[in-house]
């Protein structure tokens, strides 16, 4: 891993938000470093865009290939792109700016940065159904990644399950390559259309309506859609063998080789949380998101967020917000004044408005049902530590005030994923048990490292005289 010792702006993540931010900063001559955990740029939405074997444009579709010029812009910019590098810590540096801990390829190093743009994006919302930990159960996004990056598709029978437009997209993409899924179990609860109706006007005048209609039509043509699914269960011993689903109280079990789950995406907040940025509960999207202003600036000066990591709004909005974050960083560093920043932002701001219009409708329509966010019984909540819903609920009943105490009691959230796959579930289970809002329950308090680093790598980071003195070798306890 070749990492500069210092830079003006570090961008964490190379999805649309990160790419656009890095390009904007580099364009101005700011020393810009973009860290990418993946081997190639594109984040998840444009995963594998420089290496995908699925080169026929119509397979992955225009929305995917939209990312190609964005990556090309990064390549031709002066930004330093560092692949396979994870930012595991961001702390204030003495004398201003930040110290970013970066781990990659078996090494770790600290890099100074004047300004930090987090573009870590989103991850799939947890989908805790019975059996969701069985081999053979993966997320719909994971299936897409396998298609995009390796041209792999699961063997039939394959079932998609959950709610949200990604399911329709995956159904359509798979059909295009002759790997149509057997059915799509739609868990969108009845009545959602009515709930979403107040936002319909904005949706109907947004770019999403045409896309949505086309996508739905393709999905219907690609696979059998079963609507109103109330319960889902993945069944198997050593691996998945069947799926049982319930519609209108009647259960059906079908044999499957792969179950692809998806019920929306949520911001990946682990780094912003560990840094100490303020977060808020977004009741519409039922998740926590960092508190940011129109530029993406967080409550911590010098830390800005670009893209879905600040709140889910999709790839196009992420790209525009990346530009805004980049401009904000340039102004914060004093490289441009606010007048110039505002002038250069106009285009991106218009894009953000255009691409966030209509989201409220989509969010309301596809908000996952309680049954799939609030598991019961033996259903695993914390995959890493194998803690069940029953354990979490029982502990909440004993008066456990919140997720951090819960973590102390049960170890849920203490595994390597650091709560990414259980945090929201735990918060909502506690909220329901205590009869209060998730906003009042709060979330896990994260700490560095937010990405894995070995003991040896940690040991290789710089020490100081103070740190040596602090680690007492001989003392009376």
């Amino acid at each position: 891993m070749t990492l500069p010792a210092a830079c003006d702006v570090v961008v964490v993540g190379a999805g649309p938000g990160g790419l656009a931010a890095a390009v904007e900063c580099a364009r101005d001559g700011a020393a810009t470093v973009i860290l990418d955990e993946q081997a190639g740029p594109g984040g998840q939405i444009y995963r594998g865009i420089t290496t995908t074997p699925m080169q026929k444009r119509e397979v992955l579709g225009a929305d995917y290939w939209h990312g190609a010029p964005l990556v090309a812009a990064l390549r031709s910019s002066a930004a330093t792109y560092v692949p396979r590098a994870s930012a595991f810590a961001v702390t204030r540096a003495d004398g201003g700016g930040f110290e970013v801990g970066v781990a990659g390829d078996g090494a770790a190093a600290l890099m100074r940065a004047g300004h930090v743009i987090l573009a870590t994006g989103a991850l799939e919302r947890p989908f805790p159904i019975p059996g969701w930990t069985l081999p053979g159960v993966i997320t719909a996004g994971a299936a897409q990644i396998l298609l995009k990056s390796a041209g792999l598709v699961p063997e039939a029978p394959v079932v998609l399950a959950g709610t949200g437009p990604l399911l329709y997209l995956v159904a359509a993409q798979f059909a295009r390559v002759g790997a149509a899924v057997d059915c799509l179990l739609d868990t969108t609860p009845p009545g959602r259309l009515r709930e979403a109706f107040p936002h319909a006007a904005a949706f109907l005048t947004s770019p999403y309506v045409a896309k949505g209609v086309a996508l739905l039509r393709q999905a219907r043509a690609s696979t059998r859609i079963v609507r109103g699914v109330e319960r889902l269960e993945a069944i198997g011993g050593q691996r998945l063998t069947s799926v049982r689903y319930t519609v209108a109280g009647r259960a059906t079990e079908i044999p499957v080789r792969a179950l692809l789950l998806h019920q929306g995406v949520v911001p990946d907040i682990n780094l912003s949380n560990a840094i100490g940025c303020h977060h808020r509960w977004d009741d519409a999207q039922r998740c926590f998101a960092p508190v940011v202003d129109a530029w993406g600036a967080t409550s911590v000066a010098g830390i800005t967020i670009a893209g879905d990591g600040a709140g889910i709004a999709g790839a196009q909005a992420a790209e525009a917000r990346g530009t805004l974050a980049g401009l904000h960083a340039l102004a914060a560093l004093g490289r441009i004044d606010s007048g110039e920043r505002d002038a250069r932002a106009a285009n991106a701001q218009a894009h953000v408005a255009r691409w966030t219009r209509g989201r409220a409708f989509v969010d309301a329509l596809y908000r996952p049902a309680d049954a799939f966010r609030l598991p019961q019984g033996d259903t695993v909540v914390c995959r890493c530590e194998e803690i069940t819903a029953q354990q979490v609920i029982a502990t909440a009943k004993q008066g456990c005030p919140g997720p951090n105490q819960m973590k102390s009691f049960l170890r849920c959230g203490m595994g390597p994923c650091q709560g990414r796959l259980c945090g929201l579930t735990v918060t909502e289970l506690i909220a329901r048990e205590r009869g209060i809002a998730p906003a009042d329950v709060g979330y896990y308090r994260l700490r560095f490292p937010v990405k894995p680093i070995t003991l040896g790598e940690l040991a290789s980071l710089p020490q100081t005289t103070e740190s040596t003195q602090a680690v007492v070798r001989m003392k009376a306890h």
Partner: protein
Amino acid sequence: MYRRLPDAAAGARAVMVTIDGQAFAARDGDTVAATLLAAGYDACRTTPVTSAPRGPYCLMGVCFDCLAVIDGRPNQQTCLIPVRAGMRIERQQGAAAFGPAAASAPDSR
């Protein structure tokens, strides 16, 4: 149980690796996780807590279920690591073993 689409098979460069000691022709550019799935392994490990079988779930580096031993180093996130010629991939049984614990036979602890 995954199959390779013709577009991906065509022009693919083979990279020889071993999986649990067995030789396997991986595809250059695949991650180790994709390689395991393509080779027919749904599960790449058993968990330390209950020895439950697990396989890759998110494929994007956040779930930590895709862990396996690569070139003798345990707990590697296979979905983030590109496959390389000569790579030794082993499915991981339970917790990672280091030092004196690695020398002894794997147990269920």
